[in-house]
């Protein structure tokens, strides 16, 4: 291969500076992918980098062709074996990253280096398929700068190796592109995708369809965001913030599960009584389709519907931050119309052979009280006055007769324990009841005023069917730990439980005020990012464009893009111009400059090294100006410009201007002859 040998001439080689930057860029670009792809891919990337470094040091050689072929095949097999679906996003990205890493091993000349640079930009874009948070966006902005710097480095002199200068230049270039990026982001039509990319799957933390009593207690370990809520008006009282997510109707072997068959049509619309609370929810991806809302929710966003148990469902699973609007009517009543026979059967079903003790206990209590209200009241009374405790670490219960064991023996539990016991007892006496899972409470961010609901706000409570009033919420946790409902989880926990909380959770819950206010601040930033950047979808774009342009026509969008594009580019141009602006000019120099420009128009060009005096003398002689006058002007120029001992004011300046203008006329006259 003679040609490949000769391509090693200095012209095609990758400058050392750029090679180092390229390697750094590659690490920077690969790093975030390490969080969600198999570690072996990262290892391959690092190994290729190591190999290339050895090649640079002259210790190793570039791989032979058959080794390269082997590596490619091995990578493909590795991706196929690594578990995820062959046509999944993970597999495609893995393949891309492997190819990107292997490209290092045949990066010999400039052309290859450019391929690596462009691949780096592409890899940066793919990261946003996995994560669109502000932190990632900021990181990838930095990565752009590094990649651009590598490209800048490739165009530098071999002898002038200045990585910092390349980085600074690259940062400037990327910063200049920002205004135009914003304009395109706002105005470029959001076309529906021609094909869909299978989005990343995988587990997320949150409420699930199956719930055993310990599940929610485990969720309190997580401070992960569940969703953010922006209320149109003021936020309702804390103890009213019951975010309903799923309704659990089936109980089996100590596990509650949400109903599989959904009664799609809701029987009986709630009478839209009382004031509505309107709000929008920005939900974090859950990969599931249920949404969260306050009770008696009426969805206002297309694609969100309400099912029979008054919970909300989205058409598709929530794969990225999802924004929906809801109006809730807390005062709505069902007037007994909301129950069908099938629903009643489901809401009273319970395993007859499970928990015999509590069945007998409930029967006995039912005999005494006689109606649902009294029954529930005396049960809550029992919980609050008896030796019941609210704890994150309840003793482990057997899968059979678990409610018996909890109610009579251990008497310590979390919200699910109490709610489960209550529902079971209600059903065993024939009263329709169900368990609801979701979140309760949330924190109001003091900066932006939105409500943040995190996983540790997860909660479960009970709904009881009341003839004439419909489903009514009963929360046994309020009886055992009122603080949990009134001010959140940290108030309800014992010191022992608190020690169990993860550090971040503890920090958010305000053990250290400085940290929690910092966290509040970053939370408000994230929220704005979600609201304005991630949540800026086709709908919000249409709204904004209508506000801005009135009628949306292609011509108007085109003109707006043209206008704002030009505006943004001129902002960058102005910034450049401002940086290169001459320092504040001396008035005499300014006067001389305008004379010089005028003289140049008549063919009397000043050499840059000619001082004003020399220039005036030269052109004065050429134009045959009276020598005495000329000397006077020269002396004056010298005095005003270079002799600080001479005091002068506007009068002298004016006189000098007049003299210069006179000389200019002489020059103009001389040039016509």
């Amino acid at each position, binding site marked *: 291969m003679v040609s490949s040998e000769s391509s090693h001439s200095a012209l095609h080689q990758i400058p050392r500076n750029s090679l180092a930057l390229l390697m750094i860029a590659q690490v920077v670009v690969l790093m975030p992918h390490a969080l969600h792809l198999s570690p072996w891919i990262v290892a391959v990337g690092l190994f290729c980098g190591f190999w290339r470094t050895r090649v640079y040091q002259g210790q190793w050689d570039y791989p032979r062709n058959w080794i390269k072929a082997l590596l490619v095949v091995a990578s493909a097999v590795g991706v196929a074996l690594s578990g995820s679906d062959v046509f999944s996003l993970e597999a495609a990205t893995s393949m891309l990253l492997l190819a990107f890493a292997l490209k290092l091993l045949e990066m010999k000349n400039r052309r290859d280096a450019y391929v690596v640079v462009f691949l780096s930009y592409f890899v940066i874009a793919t990261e946003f398929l996995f994560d669109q948070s502000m932190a990632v966006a900021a990181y990838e902005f930095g990565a752009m700068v590094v990649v651009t710097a590598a490209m800048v480095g490739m165009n530098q002199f071999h*002898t002038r190796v200045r990585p910092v200068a390349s980085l600074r230049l690259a940062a400037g270039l990327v910063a200049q592109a920002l205004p135009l990026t914003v304009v395109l982001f706002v105005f470029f039509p959001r076309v529906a995708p021609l094909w869909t990319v299978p989005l990343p799957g995988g587990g997320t933390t949150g409420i699930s369809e199956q719930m055993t009593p310990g599940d929610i207690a485990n969720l309190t370990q997580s401070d992960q965001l569940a969703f953010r809520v922006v209320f149109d008006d003021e936020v309702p009282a804390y103890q009213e913030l019951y975010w309903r997510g799923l309704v659990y109707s089936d109980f089996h072997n100590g596990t509650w599960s949400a109903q599989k068959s959904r009664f799609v049509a809701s029987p009986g619309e709630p009478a839209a009584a009382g004031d509505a609370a309107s709000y929008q929810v920005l939900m974090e991806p859950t990969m599931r389709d249920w949404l969260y809302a306050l009770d008696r929710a009426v969805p206002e966003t297309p694609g969100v519907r309400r099912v029979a148990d008054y919970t909300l469902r989205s058409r598709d699973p929530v794969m990225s931050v999802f924004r929906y609007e809801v109006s809730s009517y807390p005062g709505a009543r069902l007037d007994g119309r909301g129950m069908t026979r099938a629903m009643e059967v489901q809401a009273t079903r319970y395993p007859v052979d499970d928990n015999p003790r509590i069945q007998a206990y409930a029967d006995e209590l039912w005999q005494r009280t006689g109606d649902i209200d009294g029954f529930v009241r005396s049960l809550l009374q029992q919980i609050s006055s008896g030796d019941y405790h609210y704890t994150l670490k309840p003793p482990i219960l057997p899968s059979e007769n678990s409610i018996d064991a909890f109610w009579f023996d251990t008497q310590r539990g979390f919200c699910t324990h109490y709610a489960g016991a209550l529902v079971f007892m209600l059903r065993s006496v024939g009263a329709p009841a169900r368990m609801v899972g979701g979140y309760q409470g949330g924190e109001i961010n003091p900066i932006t005023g939105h409500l943040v609901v995190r996983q540790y706000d997860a909660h479960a409570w009970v709904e009881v069917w009341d003839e004439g009033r419909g489903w009514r919420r009963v929360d046994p946790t309020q009886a055992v730990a009122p603080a949990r409902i009134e001010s959140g989880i940290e108030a309800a926990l014992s010191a022992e439980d608190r020690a169990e909380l993860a550090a971040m959770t503890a920090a958010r819950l305000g053990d250290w005020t400085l940290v929690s206010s910092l966290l509040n601040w970053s939370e408000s930033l994230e929220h704005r990012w979600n609201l304005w950047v991630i949540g800026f979808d086709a709908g919000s774009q249409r709204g904004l464009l209508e506000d801005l342009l009135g009628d949306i026509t292609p011509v108007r969008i085109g003109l707006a893009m043209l206008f704002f594009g030009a505006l943004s580019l001129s902002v960058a141009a102005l910034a450049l111009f401002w940086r290169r602006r001459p*320092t504040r000019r*001396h008035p005499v120099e300014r006067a001389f400059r305008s004379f010089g420009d005028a003289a140049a128009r008549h063919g009397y060009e000043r050499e840059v090294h000619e001082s004003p005096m020399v220039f005036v003398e030269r052109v004065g002689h050429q134009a045959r100006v009276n020598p005495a006058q000329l000397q006077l002007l020269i002396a004056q120029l010298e005095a005003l410009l270079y002799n600080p001992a001479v005091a002068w004011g506007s009068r002298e300046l004016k006189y000098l201007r007049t003299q210069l203008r006179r000389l200019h006329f002489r020059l103009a006259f001389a040039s016509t002859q």
Partner: protein
Amino acid sequence: MVLLGKNEQIRLALTCLVARGHLLIEDLPGMGKTLLSHALAKVLGLSYNRIQFTSDVLPADITGTAIFDRASSEFRFMEGPLFAQVVLADEINRATPKSQSALLEAMEERQVTMDGVSRPLPDPFFVIATQNPTTQSGTFPLPESQLDRFLMRIELGYPEPDAERELLRGGDRRVVLDDLQPVADLARLTFIQEAAGAVQVSDPLIEYVQRIVEYSRQSADFAFGLSPRGALALLSAARAWALIHDRSHVVPEDVQAVLPGVVEHRLRAAADFAGHGGGALAQKLLSGVDVVG
């Protein structure tokens, strides 16, 4: 007239002396370097010593050494040739770096320290060093850090044909040298040096000097830019030049006149890997930097 047809160089040498800087003359042998320095000393009525550098000159040969005095039974310091107001360090680049640095230390500190006793050198103290072009064999080129201590480096160059004819026609120039009478004394020289420091500089001129320095740092033609010390040297040389030309203030022509002498030995072209030269760079500064801001 001792040195014929070299008025410009004589003026530059005088400028250097007035600005209290040291002078480096780089030229081939026989161009009149020694003559120039000797004449300067004589005209100004200063004491004069000459040190001929060779590769075996030791630092003590320059600064002096302690000698045991039998009469008083103690060591007595014998001053070396450095103890004179004008010192001609001839062919400085033939000496080893050790001896070179002994001289250059003394130039910077204006004193000689031996056996823990510091002995001040006379004032004024003016070193004229000469060197052959370093490409000649048997030379040790001065490093940048030491070149920086010379305010100026000038070249004498071949004489003009007229001057050379005159030279050939006339007798031995050294005889003429003996006939030179001092035209100034020490007090007068000190007065002149002080006057040079008082020469005024306007803002537009400071900005011009700053633009020159900035240009040398930004332009891709230069391996590295002028240091702040270089900028100060440029300005003080321009002041002395202005004084010699009977002005109370500096004009751009003063800066331009001293510029090659002051900056050439402090600069190196980006494409110059051998690390020498810089004559074209001064021209680049002159033609690349606008006098008017």
